[in-house]
């Protein structure tokens, strides 16, 4: 029997994968309600929709509670709360870094050609944190980032279909106008009207234009 195997009915190492896939199949209303923001210079971030206690601090999982106590002991209750209260999903640092802070993961994108990129995924083991937290980060990356994972293979298929569409020569413009004209100005950021707004892509294009045309 595999060492990671739980007894029947108990939480299992792999259960995280099943929940991830269920969450990614959430109804459109969930995505529409998820916050999305862009900041000057092309950066951006998304609010979170996950409700898996093994991934999101603050949902009472014993591993996180143990980590919270360690943080509080070292840095005080207030600082511990402010660190663990951040529930952002995906944060983009323009032009080629993205991190999922609450899952302790960093991604770097290295473009090689117009139709070829390498994405490096780094999983972080937090100092003094329970071993379980890091194992869950690894489980998350196996399900989401791996080349044989459910999430990445779905994403790659979309990218390849888009590339084939562009390569056909029939497409003159890439449409990134979803939600345009309905952006909401907030302090230091622009929020998309809905979670599926392409406000962050427009923000990246704007940043690119500024970098290319500034003296």
């Amino acid at each position: 029997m595999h060492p990671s195997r739980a007894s029947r009915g108990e939480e299992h190492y792999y259960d995280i994968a099943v929940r991830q896939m269920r969450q990614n199949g959430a109804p459109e209303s969930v995505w529409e309600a998820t916050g999305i923001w862009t900041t000057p210079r092309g950066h951006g971030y998304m609010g979170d929709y996950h409700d898996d206690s093994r991934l999101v601090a603050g949902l009472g999982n014993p591993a996180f509670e143990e980590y919270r106590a360690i943080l509080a002991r070292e840095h005080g209750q207030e600082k511990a709360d402010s660190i663990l209260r951040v529930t952002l999903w995906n944060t983009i640092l323009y032009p080629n870094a993205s991190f999922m802070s609450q899952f302790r993961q960093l991604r770097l994108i290295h473009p090689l050609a117009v139709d070829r990129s390498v994405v490096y995924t780094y999983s972080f083991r937090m100092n003094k944190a329970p071993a379980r937290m890091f194992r869950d980060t690894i489980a998350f990356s196996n399900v989401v980032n791996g080349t044989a994972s459910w999430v990445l293979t779905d994403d790659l298929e979309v990218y390849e279909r888009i590339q084939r569409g562009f390569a056909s020569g029939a497409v003159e413009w890439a449409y990134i106008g979803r939600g345009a004209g309905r952006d909401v100005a907030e302090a230091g950021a622009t929020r998309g009207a809905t979670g599926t707004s392409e406000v962050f892509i427009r923000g990246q294009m704007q940043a690119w234009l500024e970098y290319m045309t500034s003296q």
Partner: protein
Amino acid sequence: MTPEQFLYHEARLLDTQRYEEWLGLFTDDATYWVPLEQNQKDPLETSSIIHDDRTLLELRVRQARHPRAHARQPLARTVHQVGNVMVSEENGGEITVDSTLHLTEFRNENSDCTARWFSTGCAAPGRASGSPSNAWSL
């Protein structure tokens, strides 16, 4: 059935897209692990290409059949070429078999080729829980 024949049978089930029958080869406590790094010892502390249990293998099969799984349409056509089959360990009714695998995959206009070394734990007929009594299982 010899270990060679069993592995060829597994490959044939995959290459003819008989995924449900392929899934039936696995016991309830099976682990399917494709490490990411050479000599990787541990699937829990380092990312893997695949680290599945029986439930996740079943999810892969069910996804392959799902009409809205866009990344599985069309399904890849494959050739799993199994070679260098050697029994490396025997323990009662259980044996460990090492083998090599060349996998060629065709999908849309693309083809892809991978080569891997496999270590497979097999249980003798009737030994593994949930397996048909006259068949080997993984």
